[in-house]
């Protein structure tokens, strides 16, 4: 500390003697200004987005108030609009997707970062990056032609016969529905989790591993007890990136979810998500209230993403402190 405080005053006058103009000419100030504007534009766009959604949904907000969140009816003919089935569908499909994608993705990332030979790891990473770049409509087609028939003919009957006593796996097996949408979403977000988590795991300093090994830990112990906790914050980040993608996914979901605004405990039941209903009904929404209700749904989706991201931040802070604590001990 002492050394820094002595160097700062000596540097101060030098910096101060350079006029604003000279800093401007040298480019420092220009670079600062331009990058600041870029950074500020992100905030501006977010605010504009909220403003537009808020403004555009005035009529619907006024008419339905908070009931919008708790109404189960979506009836464009009799002008009754409620968001509940869509919120439910969005959350359920995302939760199913994460429940499948998180263990698979993190497992694969640990293998690629810690256990696999370099060559295999790099080759696989190439394919994973490729998967992450596939447009969602392709995943939707995969869902329609592969996942739905598989679900209807094999997976759903199997789940029914083995765990049919659970309310989760009851009702007729159409092939489409919450579970199918969740599975397709899982396939879509796994590459994100793998790719980001692998980078994070690779960035864990060597000495962490070496220290664990030197203390007599096995390879797996050093990975599971030292490297993974060290990278916990980043891995959480990858999961929330995946969640954000799952929440907002439109095309792939609408192709496999069944597009019926229902709330049902059964994962076999057809459902609907916020993004899907907006995409489906926006172009032909003729009435003002109808259109504004769709815009309010957009606002709800924004809110949902916002809240979940906030929770994610808190979770990362909480767990990284805990991780740091055990690491030091």
């Amino acid at each position, binding site marked *: 500390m002492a050394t820094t405080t002595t160097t700062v005053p000596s540097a101060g006058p030098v910096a101060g003697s350079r006029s604003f103009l000279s800093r401007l000419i040298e480019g420092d100030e220009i670079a600062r200004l331009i990058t600041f504007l870029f950074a500020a534009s992100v905030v501006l766009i977010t605010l504009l987005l909220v403003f537009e959604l808020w403004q555009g949904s005035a009529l619907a907000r006024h008419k339905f108030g908070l009931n919008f969140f708790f109404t189960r009816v979506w*009836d464009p*003919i009799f002008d009754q609009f409620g968001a509940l089935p869509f919120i439910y569908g969005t959350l359920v499909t995302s939760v199913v997707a994460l429940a499948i994608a998180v263990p698979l993705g993190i497992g694969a990332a640990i293998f690629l970062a810690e256990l696999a030979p370099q060559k295999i790891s790099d080759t696989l990473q190439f394919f994973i990056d490729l998967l992450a770049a596939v447009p969602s409509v392709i995943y939707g087609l995969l869902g329609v032609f592969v996942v739905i028939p598989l679900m*209807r003919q094999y997976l759903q009957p199997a789940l029914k016969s083995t765990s049919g006593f659970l309310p989760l796996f009851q009702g007729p097996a159409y092939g*489409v529905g919450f579970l199918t949408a969740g599975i397709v979403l899982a396939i879509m977000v796994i590459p994100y989790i793998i790719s980001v988590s692998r980078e994070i795991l690779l960035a864990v300093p060597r000495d962490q591993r070496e220290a664990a090994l030197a203390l007599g830990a096995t390879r797996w112990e050093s990975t599971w007890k030292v490297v993974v906790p060290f990278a916990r914050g980043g891995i959480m980040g990858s999961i929330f990136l995946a969640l954000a993608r799952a929440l907002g996914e439109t095309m792939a979901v*609408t192709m496999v979810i069944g*597009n019926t605004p229902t709330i049902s405990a059964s994962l076999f039941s*057809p459902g*609907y998500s916020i993004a899907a209903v907006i995409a*489906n009904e926006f172009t*032909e929404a003729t009435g003002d209230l109808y259109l504004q209700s769709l815009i309010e749904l957009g606002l709800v989706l924004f809110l949902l993403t916002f809240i979940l991201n906030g929770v994610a931040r808190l979770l990362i802070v909480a767990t990284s402190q805990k991780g740091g604590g055990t690491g030091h001990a």
Partner: protein
Amino acid sequence: MKRIASLLLLAVLVLAGAAWADSALSLNGAGATFPFPMYSKWFDEYHKKNANLQINYQSIGSGGGIKQVTEGTVDFGATDGPMNDDQLKAFQDKHGFGILHFPTVMGAVVPTYNISGVDATLNFTPEALAGIFLGKITKWNDPAITDANKGVKLPAEDIVVVHRADGSGTTYCWTDYLSKVSEEWKNKVGKGTSVNWPVGLGGKGNEGVTGTVKNTPNSIGYVELIYAESNKIPYGSVKNSAGAFVKASLAAVSAAAAGAAKDMPEDFRVSITNAPGKTSYPISTFTWLLIPEKFSDAAKRDAIKGFLQWALGEGQNYAEALSYSRLPKEVVAKETKAIAKVQ
């Protein structure tokens, strides 16, 4: 060398000038997706005859078409369902004059199904269709279905209903029909481009409904006739108001319009579902161009009137090749008179 260059420059300038003159007048329209293949063919053919008129059309959906023409961002709109009174009033309030509906061609919506072990063309009564889509008829061997299909063995399986998830004119036509034949449907569900379906799965687009029906045993859905024809999808016959089971065809749709022609209101805002006539297919619909009554630009007004005249006459000859039904001559005669209202 220099001379060649300047000659080239001159040629480019002349060509550019010609191209400029070429696109001197352009009309912009937006709306329904269902007649898009027909309209793009028409605009293309008409442009060949009238090189100085370019008509652009964006198929953004009927709702978008009504909105844009009301806001005045396009010269004309197009829709699969007529504008309602509120929408007409909104246009009148904003512009100080009205907007006219011009039927251009017709289409139909057909019930398509996938029942294990059934290859026959099924007959559907209005009561059966309404019952199935209301969720009251739940088994394929319900007497409401089997009575109209003697000799076909229908299974005792649950019916899976498939409908459009996206807002569409197809849904408008289908629900308009169900509203006419079933009082309960009219009061409980109603008609529109999207409705609150009592039962069923939603598929996105004609292809989404077709895909779901193909994939799901014992299902029933509805698609546009054009789509069913061009993709060789089997579809059923529907009992019309004269009591005959009619399978949809271009002629049967034209017959429905002819049957409805004599009671046609002056503004053409009429549904031709459940139309009278022994050969009429009951689930038929017009698709309309929406033309403002007044144009401030006389050149645009004359261009649109000229085009309408052509579309109602010679233009109709292109319809059947694209699987649209042509307008019956009774309707053409009425519309030709109505063109004079555009000022």
